[in-house]
């Protein structure tokens, strides 16, 4: 156990060091493009969006939950990127030739991605706060939002890592990510509520785990515990299923690459 903590600690610190060496990248990672979605998209559509349709005091207040979950989505889907480079340049093989547990590398990546995602969620909520979006459930609500993010992020990161281990070239990896990410966003309740969608899109959006995550985060920001709790119960179930499917699917790729 002591050995395991030592290896996972050292591997996680490597990700942190890498990030800290790229000052620009660090700033841009924390203040992600997602912030611009919130600021520009939120303000741009303020007058176009009908308050009765979005059921929120402002469009930006409605959008906040969507942007939080979009951040989780993008981070999770990109979570395997560094492992992809490690695989391609042989660093991964160097790691796997040492007497470490076969799970350490993957676990270190989960820890790192989850930590970064949580920090980003805080930044997004902080920026939203400046625009007058004050989560009605307060800090406990923010903590629950982060927990929901972790639940969703585990499955996404697992998919991303499995993809990184399986693709033939990194061009494939990035085009698949690009292909996955946009439909996930548009076919969810990130930008508009289900009721305002064309029927066929609403059907697809209901199948998207992202919709369920947003539907639990949004009342935590806008309505309060009474409205949020049932949604939280549902999202825990949905995410348990989602994560199990992702981890089960990824396990094969992990075993093939990591032995």
């Amino acid at each position, binding site marked *: 156990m002591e*050995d395991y903590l*030592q*290896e996972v*600690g*050292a*591997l996680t610190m*490597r990700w942190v*060091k*890498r990030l800290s*060496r*790229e000052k620009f990248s660090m700033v841009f990672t924390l203040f992600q493009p997602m912030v611009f979605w919130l600021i520009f998209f939120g303000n741009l559509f303020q007058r176009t969006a009908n308050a009765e349709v979005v059921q929120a005091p402002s469009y930006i207040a409605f959008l906040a939950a969507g942007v939080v979950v979009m951040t989780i989505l993008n981070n999770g889907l990109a979570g395997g990127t560094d492992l992809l480079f490690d695989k391609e*340049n*042989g*660093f991964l*093989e*160097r*790691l*796997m*030739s*040492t*007497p*470490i547990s076969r799970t350490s590398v993957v676990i270190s990546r989960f820890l790192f991605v989850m930590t970064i995602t949580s920090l980003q969620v805080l930044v997004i909520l902080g920026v939203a706060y400046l625009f007058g979006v004050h989560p009605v459930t307060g800090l406990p609500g923010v903590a629950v939002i982060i927990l929901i993010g972790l639940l969703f992020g585990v499955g996404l990161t697992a998919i991303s890592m499995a993809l990184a281990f399986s693709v033939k070239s990194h061009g494939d990896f990035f085009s698949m990510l690009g292909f996955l990410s946009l439909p996930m966003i548009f076919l969810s309740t990130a930008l508009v509520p289900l009721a305002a969608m064309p029927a066929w899109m609403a059907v697809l959006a209901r199948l998207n785990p992202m919709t369920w995550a947003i539907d639990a985060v949004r009342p935590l920001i806008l309505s309060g515990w009474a409205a949020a709790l049932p949604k939280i119960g549902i999202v825990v179930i949905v995410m348990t299923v989602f994560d199990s499917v992702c981890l089960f699917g990824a396990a094969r790729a992990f075993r093939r690459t990591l*032995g």
Partner: protein
Amino acid sequence: MGSSVAIEVSHLSKVYEGKVTAVEDITFQVSQGEVFGLLGPNGAGKTTTLRILITVLRPSGGTARVLGLDVVAQATQVRQLIGYVPQERAIDRFLTGREHLQLLASLYHLPKDRAAKRIEEVLKLVNLEHKADEVARNYSGGMKRKLDIACGLIPDPKVLFMDEPTLGLDVQSRLKIWEHIRELKARGITILLTTNYLDEADQLCERLAIIDGGRVKAIGAPNELKSGLGGDVVTLTLAPGDLDKVEGLAQALKAQEGVRAVSVKQNVLDIRVTSPEKTLPAILNQVVARRCQLEFVDYHRPRLDDVFLAHTGRRIEGD
């Protein structure tokens, strides 16, 4: 084999995804303290063999043991005893040299104080102390290679595996890396390296296996392999006017002691000799006695590329 065996590979094979055969029925042994080379062109199966030995790839058939431990069933124990030096690019350019070594030390579960001591030792061994705290992005090719070797030495391995240790390096860095490898050998470390450089195999390896198309074509010490070809080659080219004398000269030379074979092609005689020092004067005496006029004389020892050519039917690329 007198000394004990460090690496034992027996009928090893690897088939990728059930169709591409990378390695087929490879068998060889490496003694403790030996520097052993796998020589072959790109795609010959050298790296596949190496990856099986360092436990990151499972063989499809056959067995491989390192220090008596099976690389599949006892992989974790094998990993504790070996060091691995991958190809140059396997460096994290955002980390400093020291951070690489600290990471590796943690992965080998060294306690902090022992890790610090070991890191200083290996940095000194590869002369990288002065650059240890610079990020690897700023390293030259030769320095990256030194860092690679330092990483491989962190666990104080009994057996060191090196994949193409000097691929893409300039001549000076190459010679330095060779020096380090000789130094490691002097410390008693068993080294298995892959290379597609003939001179590297010739200069560094006590024994080598020539691999082509996933199979071992020949195994032995470089000198053994060369002399196994049947001796040095003396080539005589007679003046065109002496064409009628060629046959007689060939017959006389065949009877000469120390001559193993003579082949004639028009006015050119290829003579394989066992000991050129003794045979060459005798050959020239015959030429003079028969009043033959020489146009050209060439003599060379078999080189490793002659060996490679003889066993694989083609020349190795990229050298």
